[in-house]
């Protein structure tokens, strides 16, 4: 009944999530540098080596880095079972994903297959360590509740995305022919619609009502959307696989239904937030709104793109694909990620500091650790970068350079904010250590 392993206490040491969070903006900056270097050519063709490199710097170095760090922190707390050997798991995963992304992107940018191969292997090792650790954590969860259920789906999707990613890496790195041309679609599909989308929606169902004091999501949606999306993805994959990557009616139908489900999530989230109980201005809330608007836009554009491939009179299909990618990765995932970082990091710094303070003594509060004004400034720069990147997708010649500069600026501001949290944490820790007797503040 009461499991021996049940631990309602806190997650891993603070260094475990923080090392992932602090690395993420560096990769965003590298993506900006690559864009600046390659110029409009990077956005001219969807599968140009530069575009592939930039997409992976963002998807792996920025998005996955933060998502992994957040999961390592939150899973133990939210479901009452620890991630086994958190420090070792974090070290292997962080190094594997971090160095792997660097090598992989460099391999594409400089045309060096050996770098690409090394990167792919390091990435595989890093993700494998993470997946195994989380599997253990999920299997040991004392209650298989809704959150645990959604995390199973997230992990399954990540695994599928990694497998298809390895197939593509075998092609580009080792020249091994793909078992099926469908892998070209299935890898980004499972990465974005599976791993990323399912994690954001699964956490969103819990975190949006909690942190913004909204009503709960409609019960059937919170309960079944994850499983439905996974089923649609599976059917879509089967259809594409059977047709060797050609889009038949079933694949199109599944894709349109998937897009509709995500668009619905975006609309419901915005409506719930509009009626939230907590009325204070909040940067995280604004990030969520931009994220949901981007998700809606990406879903709509992708739905139309697959249903009517020839429908784009003015823009080429390539530039539509890049626009969809920008909206999904930087607009949707990037916004939600930055917004959540501004809750998770100051809270963790406070929480760990608080545990070092004596009884009745209080650590500096979250807004002292990271003031609103700093978050607001970075938020604005990120929205500007998003707008310019969208424009660059459609008119690369005009907008790629301003977009790259704005992306670099927002990455630097984000990192400065995250480092401010670390500084506040270190200062607080030094103060706590130097005070032998409890004082009013620590």
């Amino acid at each position, binding site marked *: 009944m009461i499991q021996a392993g049940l631990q*309602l206490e806190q997650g891993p040491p603070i260094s475990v999530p923080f090392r992932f969070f602090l690395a993420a903006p560096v990769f965003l900056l590298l993506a900006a540098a690559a864009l600046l270097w390659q110029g409009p050519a990077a956005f001219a063709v969807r599968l140009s080596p530069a575009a592939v490199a930039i997409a992976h710097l963002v998807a792996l170095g920025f998005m996955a880095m933060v998502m992994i760090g957040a999961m390592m922190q939150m899973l133990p707390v939210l479901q009452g079972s620890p991630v086994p050997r958190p420090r070792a798991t974090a070290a292997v995963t962080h190094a594997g994903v971090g160095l792997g992304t660097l090598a992989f992107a460099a391999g594409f940018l400089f045309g060096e297959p050996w770098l690409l191969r090394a990167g792919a292997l390091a990435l595989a090792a890093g993700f494998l360590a993470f997946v195994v650790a989380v599997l253990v954590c999920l299997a040991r969860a004392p209650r298989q509740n809704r959150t645990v259920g959604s995390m199973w789906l997230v992990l399954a999707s990540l695994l599928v995305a990694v497998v298809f990613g390895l197939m593509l890496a075998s092609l580009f790195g080792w020249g091994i022919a793909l078992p099926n041309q469908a892998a070209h679609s299935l890898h980004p599909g499972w990465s974005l619609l599976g791993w990323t989308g399912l994690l954001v929606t699964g956490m969103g169902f819990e975190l949006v009502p909690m942190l913004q004091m909204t009503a709960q999501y409609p019960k059937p949606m919170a309960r079944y959307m994850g499983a439905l999306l996974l089923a649609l993805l599976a059917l879509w994959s089967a259809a594409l696989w059977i047709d060797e990557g050609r889009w038949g009616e079933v694949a199109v139908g599944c894709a349109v239904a998937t897009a509709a489900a995500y668009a619905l999530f975006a609309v419901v989230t915005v409506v719930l937030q509009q009626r939230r109980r907590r009325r204070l201005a909040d940067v995280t809330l604004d990030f969520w709104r931009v994220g949901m608007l981007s998700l809606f836009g990406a879903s709509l554009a992708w739905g139309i793109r697959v249903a009517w491939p020839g429908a784009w009179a003015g823009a080429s299909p390539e530039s539509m694909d890049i626009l969809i990618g920008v909206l999904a990765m930087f607009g949707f995932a990037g916004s939600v990620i930055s917004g959540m970082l501004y809750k998770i990091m100051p809270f963790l710094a406070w929480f760990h500091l608080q545990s070092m303070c004596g009884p009745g003594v209080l650590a500096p509060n979250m807004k002292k650790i990271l003031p609103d004004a700093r978050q607001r400034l970075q938020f604005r720069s990120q929205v500007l970068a998003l707008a310019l990147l969208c424009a660059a997708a459609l008119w690369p010649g005009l907008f790629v350079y301003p977009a790259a500069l704005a992306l670099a600026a927002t990455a630097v501001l984000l990192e400065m904010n995250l480092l401010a949290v670390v500084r506040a944490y270190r200062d607080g820790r030094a103060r706590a250590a130097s005070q032998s007797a409890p004082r009013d503040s620590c």
Partner: protein
Amino acid sequence: MTGIGEYMINHHKECDEVFARAEEAVGEADWARAQARFDAFTRQMDRHFDMEGNVLFPEFENKTGHAGGPTQVMRMEHDQMRVVMHEMRAALEAKDAEQYLGLSETFLVLMQQHNFKEEGILYNMIDQVLGDQGEKLLAQLDSVA
């Protein structure tokens, strides 16, 4: 019949509501209203801590012989919340909205992660372990002032 878990979850929602009302008044710098609402908020929070700390947790620990387990972590977090509430009161008395809102932001995350653990795990266990005494315990919870 309402389960114990359900009863406690409903009270979490009440606590959320009074928390938000107090914060709203501070945000508008309506100090007289903020004071009244803050009092209502701390009253509900104290009641909640008492319901758990004095009624449910001792019964649960008794039944499971597990005093060092999950309930102890929950008690620790209650203490942490009390410390933050204490500081919030000081900020309110000093009419320092910035300090109050920084503290209330911290309190909100602290409270919500705490509630999440209770609602997702602990209350289920309590319902399982103490379900047969449901009526008696609900009456006791009702009588906690």
